[in-house]
């Protein structure tokens, strides 16, 4: 058995899970997440992400294998490991009839916090997540995005060292998603280890330093975001021009392929290993003024799909 580093927030070894109906959700997972990391766990629906989170949070029983949270086994050090953990599940799982403030204060009680301390913590996180004004509202009156934020506030009320979020921004509008990203980044900067599952690959690319891709119950990729993105051989850049173009720009280098999109934009495909300064120089020489440039494809999405295929 491999040794487990004490610097890991989570260490998973040989984790398997076969459900009562015979479905094998996990087929021997080994995974380490370092302390203070912002970690992405990606995978298609049914890959096993939620099963891993379920086992860490003890809602699902592992068939075999071991999990340590900050060096302590979740099976033998139940109190210590649960105290370190905050879980934000995929599905809404608070009472629809309780008031927003009561939900967070009650959760504090389960961790041994009560009275003024519980109220202060509830206020702190409800304010941070823009829910303080809603504290006396019944939770069913909240919008979808607010409900997700309420689950984050609830998971943080005991100030865990490790926060696990299972698709926290699913169905959340772009503006709100961005504000949640900022909040999570601030939390991570302040020392909280964060593990995130998401279907928004842009989200994982923006937030996470390390990544694991799981498919059919197995880890198919486990590396840093930088190394993963470096694997991409080619990229396609889209340029918007200030003036109308009659023909596509030309390049001497055979590696650079250029196609017109419309009279004001064109795309260039080139190796990721090379710089793009030469492209700007060549465009200037041809008298083409560039108004804007963007990456055509979501790079992580391409790698994600390629990992699943492999």
């Amino acid at each position, binding site marked *: 058995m491999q040794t487990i580093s004490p610097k890991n927030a989570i260490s998973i070894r040989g984790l398997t899970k076969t*459900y*009562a109906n015979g479905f094998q959700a996990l087929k021997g997972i080994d995974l380490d997440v370092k302390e203070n990391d912002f970690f992405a766990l990606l995978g298609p629906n049914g890959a096993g992400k939620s099963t891993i989170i*379920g086992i860490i*949070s*003890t*809602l*699902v*029983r592992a068939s075999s294998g071991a999990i340590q949270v900050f060096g302590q086994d979740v099976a033998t050090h*139940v*109190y210590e490991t*649960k*105290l370190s*953990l905050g*879980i934000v*599940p995929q*599905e*809404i*799982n*608070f*009472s*629809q*009839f309780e008031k927003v403030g*009561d939900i967070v204060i*009650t*959760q504090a*009680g*389960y*961790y*041994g*916090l*009560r009275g003024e301390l519980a109220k202060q913590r509830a206020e702190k996180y409800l304010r941070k997540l823009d829910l303080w004004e809603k504290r006396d509202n019944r939770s069913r009156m909240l919008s979808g995005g607010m409900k997700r934020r309420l689950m984050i506030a*609830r998971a943080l009320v005991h100030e865990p060292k490790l926060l696990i979020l299972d698709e926290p921004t699913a169905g959340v509008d772009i503006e709100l998603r961005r504000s949640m990203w900022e909040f999570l980044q601030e939390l991570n900067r302040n020392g909280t280890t964060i593990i995130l599952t998401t279907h928004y690959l842009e989200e994982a690319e923006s937030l996470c330093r390390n990544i694991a891709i799981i498919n059919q119950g197995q880890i198919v990729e486990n590396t840093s975001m930088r190394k993963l993105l470096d694997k991409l051989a080619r990229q396609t850049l889209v340029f918007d021009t200030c003036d109308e173009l009659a023909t596509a720009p030309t390049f001497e280098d055979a590696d650079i392929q250029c196609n017109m999109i419309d009279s004001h934009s064109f795309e260039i495909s080139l190796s990721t290993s090379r710089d793009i300064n030469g492209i700007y120089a060549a465009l200037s020489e041809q008298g083409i003024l560039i108004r804007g440039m963007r990456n055509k494809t979501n790079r992580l999405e391409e790698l994600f799909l390629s990992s699943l295929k492999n």
Partner: protein
Amino acid sequence: MLTNHKYIAFETILIKEIRRFTRIWLQTLVPPAITIGLYFLIFGNLIGSRIGQMGGFDYMDFIVPGLIMMAVIQNAYANVSSSFFSNKFQRCIEEILVSPVPNYIILLGFVAGGMARGVAVGLIVTAMSFFFTSLHIEHVFLTLLVVLLTSMVFSLAGFINALYANTFDDISIIPTFVLTPLIYLGGVFYSIELLPSFGQWISALNPVLYMVNTFRYGILGTSDVNIVVALLMLGVFSAGLFGVALYLLRKGTGLRQ
């Protein structure tokens, strides 16, 4: 978990449970008051005056302890089964399951919540009975002890029912097909002395008979059963059901996959 933290967790679950049944008081506190009030009026007052005496007491006086106990049993059971199943159904039970609260504190919290509703309804029904008769409690300590033990036994039974339940139908089957017959045949409305010997023997197998009669003994000083046996039975039921519920919780029955 520190002892102090365990106590706070227990208190949190209990307060949440009390907040729940007082928030929906129109569903939890008023209906039993109306139903039992109608029993007082129809069986006790109107029909009871023609029945005359039962077990040496006016019929109204005879059925009051039984009806109070019926309200306690039904409400203690219903509170835990519906609340815990509702927590399962809405998945908010996960809030507790992911926290460090030990299983026995979860169980004690929900059972205490059921006992609180059982006792609350019992007090309401007792207060209502003063409109129909003047109660004099013969053995106060015994009366309180029986109410608490009985509400605990049925709260535990409701908890086990909720653990196994997968649909709302599953939490209404036991009260309808098991609990109601046991209560109605448990000496609430009659003394088992009225029954033939075979009927008395069958009734002796009904645990509710012991609870109702011990409570009646506490209030009126008369009983169809041996009080010591009844108290022992209540103790054994409490301990047995607590053990079963705790075992099922540890096993994760109906809660963990």
